[in-house]
């Protein structure tokens, strides 16, 4: 059975329907790519799987690890092993990245964590991402550059080791070196726990270092095409236009 099954999912925000009957499956240990032009509904799908209260499911269901989670709160989904790397993570003043992460880790694992062990893990993960140790003691995302925020998201991915990681435009706004570092982080996550990946992107640089099992193309709130890794090359060649009747933005 697939790890994540999305059945005929319809979603609206402020009475406007954004997804119209989307279905998709992601198996354990697989890497999937969700591509599509801006405004197609890629991020909506990510947010809805994570359970954002802003988005209202009007039809269909989401099943994760055998359980219907369509109506679960985000924290319960996180505890089941779903992780979303945000495109624009919020800044929360007064809470250090380190305190936050330790708290989240204890929540997700349900176990108290010795400070010493936690620090050791954190240090190792930060090294993978070439993050300066001082970031751990800075307030969560406050004053971080775009690239630093993305790294902080991947750092959380490495620490929390979810069963499914949804990466929402994690590569956007990064320079070549940063993309390489983030890719190394994603590879380290795969190695450490063999988790599944659903990568939301509209460019393919970040995929170079990964073996992609399946690609899904979304446009106007519908899946318009699915296929193997070869589909990515096709998009690179021809854009989305021939699939959607519109230019990729």
């Amino acid at each position, binding site marked *: 059975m697939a790890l994540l099954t999305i059945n005929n999912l319809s979603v609206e925000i402020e009475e406007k329907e954004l997804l119209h009957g989307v279905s998709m499956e992601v198996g354990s240990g697989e890497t999937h790519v969700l591509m599509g032009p801006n405004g197609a509904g890629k991020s909506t799908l990510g947010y809805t799987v*994570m*359970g*954002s*209260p*802003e988005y209202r499911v009007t039809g269909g269901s989401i099943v994760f690890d055998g359980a219907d989670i369509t109506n679960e*709160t*985000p*924290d319960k*989904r*996180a*505890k089941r092993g779903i*992780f*979303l790397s*945000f495109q624009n*993570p*919020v800044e*929360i*003043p*007064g*809470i250090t990245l380190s305190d*936050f992460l330790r*708290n*989240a880790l204890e*929540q*997700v694992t349900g176990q108290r964590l010795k400070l010493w062990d936690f620090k050791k893990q954190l240090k190792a993960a930060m090294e993978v991402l070439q993050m300066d140790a001082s970031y751990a003691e800075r*307030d*969560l995302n406050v004053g971080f550059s775009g690239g630093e925020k993305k790294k902080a998201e991947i750092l*959380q991915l490495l620490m*929390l080791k979810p069963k499914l990681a949804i990466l929402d435009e994690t590569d956007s706004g990064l320079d070549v070196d940063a993309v390489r570092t983030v890719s190394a982080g994603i590879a380290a996550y795969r190695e450490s726990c063999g988790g599944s990946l659903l990568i939301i992107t509209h460019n393919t640089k970040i995929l170079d270092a990964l073996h992609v099992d399946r690609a899904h193309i979304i446009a106007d709130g519908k899946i318009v095409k699915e296929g193997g890794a070869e589909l990515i090359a096709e998009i690179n060649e021809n854009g989305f236009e021939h699939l959607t009747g519109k230019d990729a933005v």
Partner: protein
Amino acid sequence: MKQKTQVADIDRSLYDFRYDEDAADFLSSGITPEIIREISEEKNDPDWMREFRLKSLEIFSRTNMPIWGPPVDGLDMRNIVTYIRPKSRMNTDWNDVPEHIKETFERLGIPQAERESLAGVGAQYDSELVYHNVRKEVAESGVVYTDLESAMHDPKYAEIIRKHFMKLVPPTDHKFAALHGAVWSGGSFVYVPAGVKLEIPLQSYFRLNAKGAGQFEHTLIILEENSDLHFIEGCSAPKYYEAGLHAGCVELYVGKGAKLRYSTIENWSKNMYNLNTKRALVEEGGRIEWVSGSFGSHVSYLYPMSILNGRGASAEFTGITFAGEGQNLDTGAKIVHNAPETSSHIDTKSISKSGGISTFRSAVTVHENAVGSRSSVSCESLMLDQISRSDTIPAMDIRTDKCDIGHEAKIGRISDDAVFYLMSRGMDEQSARAMIVSGFAGNVSKELPLEYAVEMNNLIRMEMTGSVG
């Protein structure tokens, strides 16, 4: 203070325990010249102090309540007991303090904190100090830390006290300053000689145990030139059916180039009327730093004032107010720029929840002579539900052109995006909101010594999760 700081131990009952008093120890309630004379006699006041008390009473009788601020209808002055005879003389050894009083302070963690992290401690129980002590090396540097009554009777300090007592906050200031002048009892006297810099803080803890009583302690601190002190004040009381009254007074004299930090975590029971007056006079190049957390009380009026009286003097006020169910907390700060090149900064946060009302109130005045002065005010308010209330009432009175004055205020709610973000990392909604509120209060907690910051965060968590009423 370990027994206070562990998260698992958080419980309002930590502050709510109490011991019964003997009726015989109370002076009768209400405020009359007879009662004032009785207090004065009881305390063996010098003549000038007895006269001062009676004159203050006169002022009290003819002064009206302020026309602004939260209602104080629930406070019936005729029923407030202004003085409770001490059961014990002041001691310098905890072993000499009567067992139940000692146990009170043990449970509040005071003796342990003294051993671990304080230069000196004073503990007041109802109307009188029961304990006062400073470390030997601190005493040897010439620092005086004692109760005000002893100092007033000591020929070395009698004159200093007469010269400074209620000169910054005269009884004519407002009704409750007058009341304080009439019935004050207990409190601390601190004197730091020129050039002496204390590395670790002094702390006074005020505990109002008796039912239907008032606490009127007076804190007088004098810092000579280039000295440095951190003074911490803690307050608590158990909850009784009858309303209590706290009308303390704090007068701080900060000499040339001296620096004083005055930190308060106030956690009176939620039927207390906290009508407190605090004021600092800062001379040339001196600095006052206020750190203030207001969590308790039914009604609070609290606006520490800094008078910047010498060139280059500065003031900083960092505060947080958390108003929950049944609380109306009116807090803020006042700054008077009365000399050239003075500077001030006010940074406050307030939180309203479960029908609580919090009001930020401030006054920044810049006099004609305060050329080249700067002031900035920043206040932020958080509304946690729609049955609460949060008001922001700042005022600026500027009388010179050569100055830079800035003010900003914001009000709003917890962002849904932030809650979702934290929940997506596994926190339930309540914990996510509690964490955001703790972060919101970060400006104050980072200014507090660690154990107090932990205590403050626990108070916030307690308010947010409602695990204990």
